[in-house]
């Protein structure tokens, strides 16, 4: 238990550090949201100054950081200049769309990667394994951008899939079942793009970890006791190979918010990606800082989740942790 407590404490300090750095870099970047107004001759310098004062941009940096931190502690994340509304609800609406996409894609990717990696490892070095190796290597060198664009071209040419967006026009009038179908139809392409981007890495990791433990004499011994091969692979070998995979899974969970930015932008999915890109270009400071903080919370939480899983899965870690 103390192990988990210490890990959580680390996480909190890490998040504090990250928030400070993000705030610092965003605030120190040249220019701010009101600079463009200043170039507009129809807006008087007094108005701009008043706006700057209203949003407290004229206060010193430490004061602004403290204010912002206080707001975060109260579940808010500052105020968006561009939307003229609190950041938290704005971010949440976008994050929900992103999570819909990434949770589906991550689950599917892992469900595919585990059996494929084990299957490949059981045939290590033979023809089926080489096919898997070559395919994943090829997918790995294709940039995500090209993958997404390629899928988009297919959508445009065939008309089988929508080329963007979350729902069709007239979504609100559909029956619940048709709503679900419409959503799934819109999700298909971005989910495929995300799976194709994630799958090669996952398959290669599963394959390598399992192939390594398959050499272990204790698995040979279990096979020698008359254990069926399938049980050896999925029961014994996969469990023995689990530690690096659990860490990788934690990383997958950690990138749920940040991993799909590119695909979202290309496929115009109304998630966090396009939203943050817009905010960065407009220098909408609190939206940027809030978005980065939210992604970081996920990354840290994902790693913490992996630690908990490891602690639960490996008795050696439990003893080592309680011995300290």
């Amino acid at each position, binding site marked *: 238990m103390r192990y988990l407590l210490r890990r959580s404490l680390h996480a909190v300090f890490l998040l504090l550090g990250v928030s400070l750095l993000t705030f610092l870099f965003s605030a120190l970047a040249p220019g701010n949201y009101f600079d463009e107004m200043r170039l507009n001759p129809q807006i008087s310098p007094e108005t701009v100054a008043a706006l700057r004062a209203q949003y407290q941009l004229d206060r010193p940096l430490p004061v602004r950081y403290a204010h912002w931190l206080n707001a975060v502690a109260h579940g808010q994340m500052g105020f968006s200049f561009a939307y003229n509304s609190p950041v938290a609800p704005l971010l949440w609406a976008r994050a929900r769309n992103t999570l819909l996409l990434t949770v589906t894609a991550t689950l599917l990717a892992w469900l595919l990667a585990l059996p494929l990696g084990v299957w490949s490892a059981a045939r290590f070095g033979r023809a089926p394994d080489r096919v898997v190796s070559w395919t994943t290597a090829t997918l790995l060198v294709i940039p995500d951008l090209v993958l997404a664009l390629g899928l988009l071209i297919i959508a445009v040419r065939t008309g089988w899939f929508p080329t963007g967006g979350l729902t069709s026009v007239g979504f609100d009038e559909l029956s619940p079942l048709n709503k679900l179908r419409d959503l799934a139809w819109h999700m298909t392409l971005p989910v495929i793009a995300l799976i194709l981007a994630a799958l090669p890495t996952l398959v290669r990791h599963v394959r390598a970890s399992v192939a390594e433990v398959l050499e272990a004499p*204790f698995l040979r011994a*279990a096979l020698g006791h008359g254990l069926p091969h399938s049980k050896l692979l999925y029961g014994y070998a996969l469990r023995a190979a689990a530690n690096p995979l659990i860490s990788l899974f934690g990383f997958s969970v950690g990138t749920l918010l940040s991993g799909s930015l590119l695909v979202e932008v290309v496929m115009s999915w109304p998630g966090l990606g396009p939203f943050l890109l817009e905010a960065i270009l407009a220098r909408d400071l609190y939206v940027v800082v809030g978005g980065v903080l939210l992604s970081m919370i996920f990354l840290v939480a994902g790693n913490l989740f992996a630690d908990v899983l490891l602690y639960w899965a490996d008795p050696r870690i439990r003893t080592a942790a309680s011995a300290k």
Partner: protein
Amino acid sequence: MQPLLRVENLVKHYVAGRSAGSRDKLVALDGVSLSIAPQSTLALIGESGSGKSTLALCIACLEHPTSGSIWFEGIDVAALHENQQRKFRPQIQLVFQDPARSLNPRWTALEIASEPFIVRQDTSKQERENKALELLDCVAIPRRLAIQRADELSGGQKQRLAIARALALEPKLVILDEALSALDCSVQAQISNLLLELQSSFGLTYLFITHDFAMAAHLADQIAVMDRGRIVESGPAENILRSPSHEATRSLLAATLPFTATPSIRLEL
């Protein structure tokens, strides 16, 4: 007497190199024949890379030989289907060289010793644990160590545990694949004496794989010397030790000089 195990002209090739183009063969076993009488010990001696371990895996049905036959109690086990082989495997058990890697580091000694029974699925948890505790008694592991995890045991204890696990399913043949090589001298002596005791009380047959003539002389009735995938010399242990005829045998004997050397060999050096 009818031999328990008779290996005939066993050949095993590995395809070397993983790239698609290369078709180089690695000949691990090049026509090996040997036989072991029930309740005796055959020591298989050879340098590393001479094919000893490959032979062990083939006999234990964990590798498929390229050609040749393995007769065990009148059945050619090399010709069995995968499913039949799985049912046959418990009759021949292996003890590996590296005790640290041959035991699942996440499990306790008790879990490891009861694992073979889990595979059988015909016993309750309580029965399995009782049997496992009896096994630990057999190999003289104190019962208080039963709840220790494998990676917390000493090298000698680990190897005793590996032996206990190998005995769980009452095998007829136990293959000791360099089972003593990773242990220090005093532990080696303890374990080899334990092996002799177990042999007489359970009527076991050993295939003892080693590169150490001194240990072979201590444990074995028969000795076979292997070199580059072939048996180059075999016969009763004393004969081989007294008058080695093959070059490979002599160089292996020379490597264990302090224990077994005869004056004639010393002169050659």
